[in-house]
């Protein structure tokens, strides 16, 4: 009986704290942390389980409860995520894993930029080529144009 006292006291204190608590946060941070790695598959949003804003979401809510339960059982974050992937496939992840064919989702934008840079380089090289073959210009003509430029610049200033 005496041994039970601290437990009862703890229960009472916890109960009091619950009653005294004026408000309660809806999503514990540790659940959110894991939830942010998982896609909400409700079909009505593109959010993660961690930040799906729909209070009554038919996918995120049970998923959060499951995460919380697994965390209570001291399951690691990776194992929780793994359990979701095992059940729903890789679509359970908010972004595809960087493996196999799915690597392409990450690499193609980089490849596209590189190809664009190569194309620009090729274009610039080609567009600058003819100037080298141009004939020498008469210095008198050049001087005339320079004078004209100087006059225009003087007007601007």
């Amino acid at each position, binding site marked *: 009986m005496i041994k039970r006292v601290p437990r009862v006291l703890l229960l009472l204190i916890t109960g009091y704290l619950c009653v005294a608590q004026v408000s309660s*946060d*809806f999503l514990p941070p540790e659940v959110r942390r894991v939830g942010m790695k998982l896609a909400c598959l409700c079909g009505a949003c593109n959010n993660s389980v961690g930040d799906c*804003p729909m209070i009554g979401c038919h996918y995120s809510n049970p998923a959060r409860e499951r995460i919380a339960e697994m965390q209570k059982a001291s399951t690691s974050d990776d194992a929780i995520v793994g359990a979701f992937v095992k059940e729903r496939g890789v679509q*359970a992840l908010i*972004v*595809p894993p960087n493996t196999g*064919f799915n690597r392409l989702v990450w690499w193609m934008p980089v490849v596209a930029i590189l190809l664009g840079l190569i194309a620009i380089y090729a274009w610039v090289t080609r567009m600058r080529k003819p100037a080298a073959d141009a004939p020498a210009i008469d210095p008198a003509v050049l001087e005339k144009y320079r004078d004209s430029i100087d006059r225009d610049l003087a007007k601007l200033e």
Partner: protein
Amino acid sequence: MENLGALSLILAFCFSIYAVFGSVVGKWKARPFLVKSAERAVLAQWGLQTIAAALLVYALLTCDFRLAYVASHVNTAMPTIYKFTAWWGGQEGSLLLWSWILGSYSAVVVWQNRKKFRDMMPWVTATLMVTQAFFLMLIVVPLSPFEVLAVGKEIRAVPDGNGLNPLLQYWSMAIHPPMLYLGYVGFIVPFAFAMGSLITKQPGDGWIQTTRRWTLVTWLFQSCGVLLGAGWAYAVLGWGGYWGWDPVENASLLPWITATAFLHSVMMQEKKGMMKVWNMVLVSSTFFLCIFGTFLTRSGVVSSVHAFAQSPIGPYFATFLSIHIAATAWLILDRLGYLKSEAQLESVLSRESSFLFNNLILLASCFSILWGTMFPVISEAVTGEKISVDAPFFNRVNVPIGLFLLLLTGVGPLIAWRRSSLESLKKAFLWPSIGGFAISAALFALGIRHFYALMAFGLCAFVLLTVAMEFFKGSRAISAKTGQNLLSAMVELTHRNTRRYGGYIVHVAIVMMFIGFTGAAFNKERTIELKTGDEFDLGRYHMRVAEIKQGENPNYDWGHAVVEINQGGQLIGTLAPEQRFYKAGQGQQASVVAIRRRLHEDLYLNFAGMQNGKVIIQAYVFPLVGWIWVGFAGLIFGTLICLVPSKVKYEFAKTKVMGVAQGAAKPKAVSGD
């Protein structure tokens, strides 16, 4: 009435087919009367579509529940304005709106150019009417808006309709879809002129000059459509997100990006006669992406919040798009000889190069968004496994691209056309760079450690300084010459070259939007269960639930909470978020969020639900988000300035390398449009 509507659409379809053949055969066989009659057919199809549209709107306003479309999208309790907007609330009606806008644009094009471009116009008309015939076919055959409800052979009206989705009963949603459609459809006109110019082998500047203004107006509509959608999502969906990288949102952004690239690269063609092939590719891509966006929304190929119900029209779109892409690619390749550049690139350090990089980055962004949107479909086809590509992918890829684009927004105006010397660049970049670094350093010193945020704020300062310097230098020169004060000189400067300075205003608007986007790095949120009298904190705000009320009216049941907002011990106001459950239809739910809008941050409360006698409040603090909407206003203003004719008519002499000055120093280049 429904028969008249359906008949009008069938006749409009016939007229558009006639317009295609009349134009092509008339031009081919040199029969001007056929070409003229084809142009009249364009006007006729517009008139007929107007009749059909008016009949549908009348049916919606008068709640004619014999029509299946009306019964599905309207109910008697809806306000009149939303009965009207139900025109584009469903698949069939929105396709009619699409088609009617295209009909209207086509009629305007034909009327405007009745005495111009006589060589090109038959092909322009044919291109427009091929697209028109395609859309009319959709609303004539598989998706007629005039389908009636019947039991056996007897037409029957239902007592009341389902009503419009309550989420769509919001002012910006009333204008967001038409704006987007005005944008989507409008991009067909530059494409039609581009095709006309290619077919008639006149790939000079004629089509560019004709369609530049058109492209700009269309781009403005598209921008408004995208941003109104963002504003709607922010104010209605209850989680404060203005962009969710949803496939349909992405689809609206893709043509906007390629059109933005086109509006920049087109200057190269106008001023230097360069990049003709590229401009053809861009204007065609913009058109294809518009059709692709419409296909994504309506085919069900990707799952999206925005998508209309799945319908059988996906294959029609795929066929139409494939044929168009193949024909355009063939035409461009066949006419490459006519699309040769008229000038050479004189230096890598030039405005021309900065436009190239601008285009590269815009296209990279466009590709990454398209790739991310379609990758789940591609991956499933290849591996057989479904995957999710959600917001983190798009953010991770597009944030660096966006920042680089922001940098180019500031760099471009400082580099001269033709060539810039390193010395002149150093001089031009000195103060903006110092300003940018100073802002980043100051924010770092104030405790901000978010790398991208520091970069973004620094770049925003850099761009603002470059634009301010451009305005200041020009106005000071005018002020010195005319004696006007600096402000009047600035107005005069802008009026002299509206395209250039209007463009700078748009750049400033983009910077403001980036400031707003960057604020998202510092968002705070809390979802909390509360009863009357409960208090909670978020950021600098201390809040107390003063009252929770529930009730009903003929249209919906509602619950709302009155929340007192305190800051520093002072009551600074109250917010009353509300939740509604509409009685009509399937009892759909909608939130009326309460937002305390300020430029430095928004406080955003959403009544998310009731549980065990307590209210669930989602509270958010969104720093700087208001700058997005300020940027939106700036973008409209800047674009309108661009559309005002310049006071000074600029002529852009095409430069050509005539010879090389042996051993001579290179002439100094000057900046300017």
